[in-house]
Structures are given as C-alpha cells and as structure tokens.
C-alpha cells in the first residue's frame, strides 16, 4: 500500500530521472527533465541538486503526478 506522499529522496530512481533515464509521458515532465539534464551536462547543476529540484517539484503535486511516479518507482 502506497502512501499519498512521494518516494523518499534516497531512492536511486530520482537520480535516474534527473539524468533522463526514464521516459516521461507528460509534456511538463519531459521539459523539466530536459532542463535539468541540460544543466547537468553544462556543469551548472550536480546530480544531487537535480534530485533536490525534482523532489521539491513532485512534492508540490503528489497526487497529480502519482501515476508517473508509480511507473518509475513501482511502489513505496
């Protein structure tokens, strides 16, 4: 049984997401991932900072992106 909250920040899937290793379906998530991965490629953001940014973003909309998170994290 999953809670309504999002997966904990120490899950490796967050770093995978930040690095563009998971295909996102929603347009806004594609753009978010693109922005983060571009910044990391340009050394303007570390992986940890990318994870922090993503985590905070998903915290704002835990219900709205629940299905997207379930596809990646499966359970939490």
């Amino acid at each position, binding site marked *: 049984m999953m809670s309504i909250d999002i997966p904990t920040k120490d899950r490796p899937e967050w770093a995978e997401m930040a690095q*563009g290793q998971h*295909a*996102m*379906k*929603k*347009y*806004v998530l*594609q*753009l*978010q*991932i*693109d*922005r983060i*991965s*571009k910044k990391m490629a*340009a050394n303007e953001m570390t992986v940890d900072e990318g994870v922090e940014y993503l985590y905070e*973003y998903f915290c*704002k*909309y835990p*219900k*709205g992106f629940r299905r997207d998170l379930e596809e990646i994290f499966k359970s939490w």
Partner: protein
Amino acid sequence: MIKLQSLEEVTQLINEGRLLSLAGDERILSKLPKGQWLAGSTPYFMDEQQGKFEQDAIYVDDFSDFALDQKIMVYTPDTIATITQNRFENGFTFLVIPAFSQLHADYALHAGDFENIYDSPILGWVSGVNLNSEDTPIVYNGLTGEPSSEFAVAMHIQIPEGKMAQLEILNIHSQDPNSPVIEFEEDSFNARECLINGERQNFAQYISNNKIDTKTPITCDYSGAVINVSVKAVNTETGQVDFYAPVFRGRQYKFANPVENYAEEFARQLPKEDSNQGFSCNCILNFLYGELEGKKAGFPGPITFGEIGYRLLNQTMTYLKIVDID
C-alpha cells in the same frame, strides 16, 4: 458552449461578468465592452465541426466555472520574465502575445530560462492576421479595452484545491530517424552556417540541394517532447534561412517525417480521454499546409501564429486540461 459566437452573444457574456478568452478579427473585437476578458486577433479557427475563416464571429473560451480567482496583467519586454512570479500557486496562466513584436521574439528566446517556468502551466497563443490583409496582429486587455501590437496580455487563474491544470501538446510532426543531425551555433531566428552531421555547411544551400520540403518543420527532442521550428524562408542567394521560432545552440535538430494527410493524422493521434479540455489552439501553418479549412482536425480552438506551451511552439496543437486529482 458553442465556440464561435456573435458580437451580441459575447457582449452579453462579458456583461454577465464571465471570465473569457476571446479570439477574432480586430474589427469585431474592438466593439466589445470592457470586462473580464482578454483577446487576440485571428480570423482563422477550428470550431466544433471544421476549420474556418471567419471575420464576423468571436471564438470564446469561458474559464469562469473553474476559476476561484483571477488577475489580468499586461507584460512588456521589460517585465515578461516576471510572469512566473505573478502566478497563483494552484492554477495556470493564459498568455496572448502579438506576432512580430519584440516581446514575441524575447519570449521565444528566453521563456525556457524563466525562473520556475514549469511549475505551473503557461499556455496561450500568438495573435495573427488575415494573411491577405495589411492588418497588424494585436491583443486586447479587456479590463481597459485597449489593444496593443507591442505588449502581451495574461490572465492568471487560480483553480480549486483537488484540481490540477495540465498542459499537453499534440505534435503530428515526428522526427525522421534517417535525418542528418543539424546543430546551430547561436540562439537565433535565422541561420546561415550550421553543422550537418558534424560538417559545416550553408543551411539554405543544403535545403535547396537536397530538395527538403520546408512545410515540414525541423524538430528537436526535449527529453521526449518533440519541439518544432518551422521554416519561414530559404534564400539561397544570401544563404540565410529564417525560422518562425528560434533554434538554439547546443541542441540537435532533425528534419521531420512528411505528413500525407494532416486531418487524418490529427484524428488518429487525438487523445480520446482528453475531449473535455479547457482550451486548445493550433498553428496557422498546420491549417495552411494541411488545407484544414472545411476539415475537422484536432480540438476546437483559434488558429494561431504561434502556440505557447510554456515556451513558444510551432506547428503544434496545444491544449489545457483541468483534472481532478483527489
């Protein structure tokens, strides 16, 4: 609600205090009373049945039923970057920009870098004109009734808790996997030299030599989102290619696959579960190249000189859904 309405019908909606996004020819928009509305000019539409050229009716989207609060604001080139700071925490921003303005160019080049741009939907469109006229694209701030060909008008809308605004796109133009990779050296609305599969070439000459159909856009993959840049003009004498949206340095572009039948492609790709969208718009280039006048293609909406889905888009249907998340 019927999307294309008469001046009298829209006037009544305004006088009832409805919160409206409007699109129409400037001659009819200029007759509207002040109220809670914004508008942009275009005489091209996709209504519930088919694509239309219509100068005597106004296209209406009514946001009243899901708006808790709203604020209509005007943005200049100096203030447009602050648009993200004026949003409600839960809601969306509807933005209309006049085509060919400085603000149009600025937004296209820089919106992707606006602070927290992707935290809440910013959608809308670039206003246009009758292509067989000398008109100027304009937008209207309904609060004052003032038109502008230089400034943008935005409506920030707050929606109730338990609901979420989701912005999606439908791009019928897919990347050709056999296309060469094209890279540009600067962020710009035009280009001469570029790298094609790593080799420096003149882009206009390459397009001409290879008989590239410029009705299909060049495309860039933004982590799964295919973003188009439409070709405006190719001049082999000067060697310059002009675009309707900027290309960006550091990005890899590819030519798109040709689309045989735009209307059929929209019908095939249109998401069935998203039929209850809050707003939609589509591009004048899809309308023209796909010969969509008299044909049903995509969701109803104004036909525009650019679509706004956070950033400036070309040849892309953009739409907003208000979904329940409880």
